[in-house]
């Protein structure tokens, strides 16, 4: 699959990778990437090939044989590509099914991560560094990339220096993690490498690289076979096409050659070629490479001029390279001989370290430009193949139809759903009402729907819940008011105001009564005390001990404890527990009596009241445990008003006369 894709791009990847390898290693930079025009989306630059030349953490080889730096580097780049593909396929078990994915994510250094993530990027013409380089046709040397405008370079987390220049309708990008100021010689050197490399492949120095390819597994071997079959006829054309499209070998291509020059044409050519390329897949063969290079060198000097999409510098460079091949081959030999794998500790303290360590909740103040976020997003995105899960509906043949349809913007015309009275009805019930159900079982019977209460408020944002909560409170309040009302006897009206004011009045009255009862008791106590001196009360003391009597009795008992115990005997208990309150409010007289019960007592009291010219209009009485409780409301019949004291006295007389 991977190979197929690369082939469709029409660029022989292995060859190109070697070119990239030579170039980047000769200048000891970290990586080289070739961005080519996408076959699926016109004008879009996407990853085509790359070579990684940076630090390596864990090395995994598929075979025990020793490889030199050449092979190692190519192999590593291959493995990284495989890893990216296996990761982006989203299959967790792809590493087991795909033996070539020998690397796992934890084997990677930060720089390798960066390299890996770059594979996910695409650029439209003019976008990003590669896009710009393509549109302007000029090389761009970006110094101190992390501080560059994100519009210029969005992947600014790792590489400090980046160069981009157009090449074969695509863009070559080179990066290093050190700051390197612009150096025309270096640039020229690199460009030379790309043009001269094919010649170089015939040299022995590169043969190990080819061996590597052969070692890569059955797939490659297969390709070699095919190469053998078709090498003489088609293969050279294809190759020539991809590396230098203007070498006429084929009629079809020749036609194209005439107006060749714009990326679109190249793109089309690649399309035409792609079947050949993919079926042959023989970029590995270096014989056609050689021949193509020869072709190019022969006709190069004149035709290079016509490359409209190459800048002048490049053209000059081509001239140079053609004219001074000795010099060039020297340049190549030097790195081949001298470069061992550069192991520089340059990737420490890179932001990636943090990104990988997601266990830290780092509230860093990273620049939140979304461009910047792309890098980190992609990092995690490549672990999941997002594009496959949510494809265009219906695009997957054989798959069941999706329930979803593509979202379409609905204008304001559709107002059907604009006004929904109760928003988030169910959610609110769950969050607010269910809680109340648990805390207050009463609520369950009151099926009031929060949202349905008085719709149409203007401030709708807070309103729903406020109304709801208020309603909850209201309900509670109402219940409490009902309860309060049942406690206060004298409430006539049902509205809350009167309930409250009546309750206040009632409480005041109760307080007054408490006071009066207190004073009344004092009188009775005096009376009791006198009586008790003659008749010591044993019964009272017993009751105190058991604590079963009313509070009043208790107190009295306590008081009596202070008295002479010798005298405590034989007094009838009825006398002890008499309480009498008389209260006059205007024309009204309230009489409360609490006294021992005996026959005809109520009648006698009523007689006494009547004698005092009082007309009783409400009488409540009860007798429990031989005790009479009598509440009497009365009015004066005539104009004559008897004093409270006089009423008390006459009632006491009645109660006391046994």
């Amino acid at each position, binding site marked *: 699959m991977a190979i197929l894709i690369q082939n469709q791009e029409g660029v022989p990847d292995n060859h190109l990778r070697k070119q990239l390898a030579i170039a980047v290693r000769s200048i000891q930079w970290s990586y080289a990437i070739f961005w080519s025009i996408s076959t699926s989306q016109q004008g879009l630059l996407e990853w085509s090939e790359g070579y990684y030349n940076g630090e390596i953490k864990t090395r995994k080889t598929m075979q025990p044989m020793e490889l030199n730096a050449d092979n190692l580097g190519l192999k590593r780049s291959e493995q990284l590509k495989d890893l990216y593909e296996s990761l982006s396929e989203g299959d967790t078990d792809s590493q087991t099914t795909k033996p070539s994915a020998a690397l796992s994510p934890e084997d990677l250094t930060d720089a390798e991560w960066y390299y890996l993530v770059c594979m996910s990027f695409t650029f439209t013409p003019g976008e990003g560094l590669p896009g710009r380089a393509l549109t302007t046709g000029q090389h761009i040397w970006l110094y101190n990339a992390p501080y560059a405008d994100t519009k210029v370079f969005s992947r600014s987390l790792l590489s400090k220096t980046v160069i981009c220049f157009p090449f074969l309708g695509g863009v070559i990008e080179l990066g290093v993690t050190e700051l390197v100021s612009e150096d025309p010689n270096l640039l020229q050197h690199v460009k030379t490498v790309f043009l001269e490399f094919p010649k170089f492949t015939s040299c022995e120095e590169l043969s190990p690289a080819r061996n590597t390819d052969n070692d890569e597994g059955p797939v490659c071997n297969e390709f070699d076979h095919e190469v053998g079959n078709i090498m003489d006829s088609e293969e050279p054309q294809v190759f020539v096409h991809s590396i230098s499209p203007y070498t006429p070998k084929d009629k079809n291509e020749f036609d194209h050659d005439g107006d060749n020059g714009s990326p679109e044409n190249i793109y089309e050519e690649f399309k035409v070629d792609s079947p050949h390329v993919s079926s042959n897949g023989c970029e590995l063969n270096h014989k056609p490479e050689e021949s193509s290079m020869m072709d190019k060198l022969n006709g190069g000097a004149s035709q290079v001029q016509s490359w409209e999409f190459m800048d002048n510098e490049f053209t000059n460079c081509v001239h140079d390279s053609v004219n001074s091949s000795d010099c060039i081959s020297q340049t190549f030999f030097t790195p081949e001989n001298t470069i061992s794998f550069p192991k520089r500790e340059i990737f420490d303290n890179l932001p990636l370290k943090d990104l990988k360590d997601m266990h830290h909740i780092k509230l860093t103040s990273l620049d939140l430009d979304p461009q910047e976020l792309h890098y980190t997003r992609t990092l995690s995105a490549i672990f999941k193949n997002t594009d496959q*899960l949510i494809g265009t509906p219906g695009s997957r043949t054989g798959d069941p139809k999706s329930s*979803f349809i593509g979202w379409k913007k609905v204008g304001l015309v559709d107002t059907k759903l604009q006004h929904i009275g109760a928003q988030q009805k169910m959610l609110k019930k769950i969050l607010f009402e269910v809680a109340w159900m648990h805390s207050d079982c009463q609520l369950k019977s009151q099926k009031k729907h929060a949202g349905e209460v008085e719709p149409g408020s203007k401030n709708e944002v*807070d309103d729903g819940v406020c109304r709801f909560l208020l309603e909850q409170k209201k309900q509670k309040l109402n219940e409490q008011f009902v309860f309060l009302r049942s406690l206060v006897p004298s409430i006539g009206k049902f509205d809350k105001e009167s309930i409250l004011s009546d309750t206040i009045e009632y409480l005041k009255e109760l307080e007054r009564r408490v006071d009066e009862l207190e004073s009344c008791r004092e009188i009775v106590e005096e009376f009791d005390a006198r009586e008790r001196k003659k008749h010591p009360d044993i019964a009272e003391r017993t009751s105190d001990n058991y604590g079963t009597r009313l509070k009043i009795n208790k107190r009295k008992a306590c008081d009596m404890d202070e008295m002479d115990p010798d005298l405590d005997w034989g007094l009838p208990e009825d006398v002890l527990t008499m309480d009498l309150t008389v209260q006059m409010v205007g024309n009204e007289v309230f009489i409360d009596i609490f006294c021992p019960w005996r026959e005809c007592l109520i009648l006698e009291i009523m007689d006494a009241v009547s004698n005092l010219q009082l007309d009783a209009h409400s009488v409540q009485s009860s007798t429990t445990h031989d005790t009479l409780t009598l509440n009497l409301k009365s009015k004066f019949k005539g104009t004559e008003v008897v004093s409270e004291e006089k009423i008390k006295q006459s009632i006491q007389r009645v109660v006391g006369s046994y």
Partner: protein
Amino acid sequence: MDKSSTHTYDSPYPIYGMAFSSLFERIAVGSFIEEFDNKIDILSFDHHQTLSFNPNLSLDHPYPPTKLMFNPNNKSSSDLLASSGDYLRLWEIKDNSFEQTTILNNSKSTEFSSPLTSFDWNEVEPRRIATSSIDTTVTIWDIEKGVVETQLIAHDKEVYDIAWGEAGVFASVSADGSVRIFDLRDKEHSTIIYESDTPLLRLAWNKQDLRYMATTLMDSNKVIILDIRAPTMPVAELDRHRASVNAIAWAPHSCRHICSAGDDTQALIWELPTVAGPNGIDPKLAYTAESEINQLQWSALQPDWIGIAFASKLQLLRL
């Protein structure tokens, strides 16, 4: 599951709670009856490949369950279901029977538990369940031991939702309008990463990319996407719903996709772009239901299925 794109199950009662098993093709739905006699029904696919309900798997639940969730990281063969409401209850679901294994009461002092608004089951540490309550607290349970590991006063007001990020880190949203992150290694402090004037009702942490979480506001059509590294400023506000949002769920297998559903009867799938355009973010896909969608779950077992609940219906939608 068969090849048809949508499955519908008609429940005898309104549905709110819903959960996909992480182990079997099994779905739990919780009734919403405003009485003391609610049910949790376990649905599965019968031999006709239709969603059906096994009468032996009808669990009694006093008040409506506020949330249902199966053990997200099931190593054993038993399928545990948790429900919240008055207490946190754990049920073991078998093919043709069930057993209520535990009732966990978060109140230390009384037999009455503070009502629970939601909970989340820790995927990394499956013995941990965090519950949120209207009494402003959050309780971390060790369900293996059946004890409270920690109880924190998390917010100033009712806590409405809670979500684990990793083994010891969770976030919660509240009526006080804040999203707070807690780390169990440092219980003294919490980090407020977002504050609004409006109560926040729902919270979802992107399990595929822990830097992102999503929350919803009361009476709002917005889904707020937060980056925990950038407190206070949402990275995105998804506002294409035409009425309030009721539920959100991140894709279980993709870090860039989130689904939201709301009163506009729509379930929308969004792909978070690498670069947000000036006109906001448009959803990728949409599904329109018959009425307001109250619940939304994305199956982790079969990520191409999304479950929604509206009125008394459960629907499985294929992506």
